């Protein structure tokens, strides 16, 4: 057991010491564990039961389909039923369980990998794609297996478990939220990947883009995750371990210090009040919003309500969820962003995957093409607006005509509520996300027609620099300090100022305390970020003088090189 280090991109700070738990890539939570020989027959039975459950399920679905007489679909289900009954899945995994004494999930996954690899070699594109049917069937069986109540307890204490994954999908992220792992490390990803967002939301260290962590690290190996430096240490020696235990304690003390500024009013040295708002995904995030004393919710991402489910949430369900958030925030602002689906967040409403989803039919484009779906959400948001201070935020606008269409649909939703004699806030404010470069360049026109602007820096950077943020081969080019990005942000802030409209940033840049002073100097007064970032940004605000920062920011805006910008930023942070 020799010790070695691997380097990646740190996306969430902190230090974790624990044991590695490897999870298989796309397929939810498949863990490998050994079972004793005498448990083999039981494990085989468990698999048989899962397969027969899935079969019953599919037969049920097929029966329901026949009423709607979609022959195409029914043939599809037939294929799945046949795959299920195929010797390759009904028998081979059982052999693997008994040969390797491993759990049923792992055996199934192993067999699937063999089959998928065979499909990959087929030249016929159409038949090659059938591997997806195989994957879907396996996922179905896995879900039944994983949901089994008698699942053995194979993990160490969660708080000392470090998850090692290839990548974490949005759906996985939601699942992991319910756990208390010590850290996440992944082969793929960048600073705005879902792994990163998840880790920050759980306030645990995380390192991504490690390339081949999954093949280098073995299950249950002792590892240290240094999220402050982007280093993973595998099998650390005793003195390194002790050194890190000290560092971990110091980090904890630093965090405690931050908690002392919680109740201080958030204003600068020259007495200017700054609003630090929170980004949330689910109502459960409110606890952390309150704990960190956010002055409101600057971004409520609603697409997570649409994920991990078969049917779309109806108006009543959405309304109840929005209302619960609005009511628990009392009279503080709650900005609800309409469905921002598409791209990497797949929902049941949008199942076709285009080759370039970030530029495809998503967000407001999807909503305008599905007016019924949009109307349900608008009505639910409007109804919630009666219970507090709600604002609507429209994602991914790219033209004024989209904005006008959206406003028209909001008008219609209002009218339908009036007809139904349901109460709502008739003066509800409508804002737009500034994330398409075309809109940032043209920010004045949008500022005139919107009530507020919210800059989504993650997508703005991705679109401006043409960097796919999920592709780790180009993620090093993703640079929030690119002069063009700063210019677009500046243009937007100035446009808001000119027309007296609030401008906020709700992307990752708002929560990066290294950038707080720069943004204050550029005139930003509303920052919306993950609740866990609020206190470190607040610490910066408390030490800033906006008047003095203006000239420094102006100088930075004139700088042509990112490197020089970084040096200047280091200087103002000293």
């Amino acid at each position, binding site marked *: 057991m020799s010790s070695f280090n691997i380097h990646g991109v740190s996306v969430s700070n902190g230090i974790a010491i624990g044991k590695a738990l490897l999870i298989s890539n796309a397929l939810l939570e498949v863990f490998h564990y050994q079972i004793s020989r005498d448990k083999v027959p039981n494990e085989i039975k468990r698999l048989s039961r899962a397969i027969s459950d899935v079969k019953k399920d599919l037969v049920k679905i097929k029966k329901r389909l026949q009423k709607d007489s979609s022959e195409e679909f029914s*043939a599809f289900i*037939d*294929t799945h039923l*046949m*795959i299920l009954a*195929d*010797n*390759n899945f009904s028998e081979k995994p059982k052999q693997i369980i008994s040969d390797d004494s491993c759990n049923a999930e792992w055996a199934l996954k192993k067999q699937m990998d063999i*089959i998928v690899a*065979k*499909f990959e070699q*087929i*030249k*016929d594109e*159409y*038949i090659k794609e*059938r591997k997806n*049917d*195989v994957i879907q069937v396996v996922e179905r069986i896995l879900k039944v297996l994983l949901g089994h109540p008698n699942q053995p307890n194979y993990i160490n204490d969660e708080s000392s478990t470090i998850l090692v994954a290839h990548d974490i999908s949005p759906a996985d992220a939601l699942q992991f939220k319910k756990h208390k792992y010590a850290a996440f490390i992944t082969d793929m990803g960048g600073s705005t990947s879902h792994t990163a967002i998840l880790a920050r939301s759980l306030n645990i260290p995380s390192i991504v883009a490690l390339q081949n962590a999954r093949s280098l690290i073995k299950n249950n190996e002792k590892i240290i995750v240094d999220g402050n430096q982007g280093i993973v240490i595998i099998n650390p020696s005793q003195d390194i371990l002790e050194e890190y235990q000290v560092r971990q304690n110091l980090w904890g003390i630093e965090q405690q210090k931050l908690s002392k500024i919680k109740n201080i009013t958030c204003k600068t040295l020259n007495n200017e009040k700054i609003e630090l708002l929170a980004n949330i995904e689910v109502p459960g995030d409110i606890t952390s919003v309150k704990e960190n004393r956010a002055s409101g919710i600057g971004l409520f991402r609603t697409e997570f309500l649409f994920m991990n489910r078969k049917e779309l949430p109806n108006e009543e369900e959405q309304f109840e969820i929005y209302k619960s958030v609005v009511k628990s925030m009392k009279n503080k602002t709650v900005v609800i962003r309409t469905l921002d689906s598409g791209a990497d967040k797949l929902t049941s409403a949008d199942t076709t995957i285009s080759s370039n989803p970030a530029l495809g039919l998503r967000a407001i484009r999807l909503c305008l093409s599905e007016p019924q779906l949009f109307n349900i959400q608008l009505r639910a948001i409007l109804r919630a607006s009666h219970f507090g201070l709600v604002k609507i935020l429209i994602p991914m606008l790219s033209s004024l005509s989209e904005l006008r269409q959206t406003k028209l649909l909001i008008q219609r939703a209002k009218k339908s509520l009036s007809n139904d004699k349901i109460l709502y806030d008739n003066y509800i404010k409508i804002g737009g996300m500034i994330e398409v470069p075309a809109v940032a360049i043209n920010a004045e026109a949008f500022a005139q027609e919107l009530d507020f602007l919210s800059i989504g820096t993650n997508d703005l950077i991705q679109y401006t620099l043409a960097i796919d943020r999920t592709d780790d081969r180009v993620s090093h080019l993703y640079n929030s300090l690119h002069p063009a990005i700063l210019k677009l942000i500046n243009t937007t802030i100035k446009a808001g100022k000119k027309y007296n409209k609030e401008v906020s940033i709700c992307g990752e840049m708002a929560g990066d305390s290294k950038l707080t002073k720069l943004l204050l100097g550029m005139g930003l007064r509303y920052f919306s970020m993950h609740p866990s970032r609020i206190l470190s940004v607040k610490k910066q605000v408390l030490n800033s003088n906006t008047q003095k920062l203006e000239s420094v920011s102006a100088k930075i805006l004139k700088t042509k090189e990112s490197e020089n910008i970084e040096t200047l930023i280091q200087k103002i942070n000293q």
Partner: protein
Amino acid sequence: MIKKKIKIINKLGLHARASSKLTQLACTFNSEIFLIKDENKVNAKSIMEVLMLAASKNTIISIEANGSDEKKAIYDIDKLILNYFGEGE
């Protein structure tokens, strides 16, 4: 055991739907049934093995059946293939 050579004539070859029809039919017989393309020999009762044979239009395959109803098996499968798997093209 009997064996017969036959050409795949439908447009898409042994794609998902054709494969599933063939497998479904094969499963109704007691005989062991195999499809052979070049040196690959697969179980006709396994949808995945049939798919992975990737037999496109104009491929010549052999059907091999072994059992009590081998004659009828070959006859029916032959008919299905000649009938464009009931897909009309």
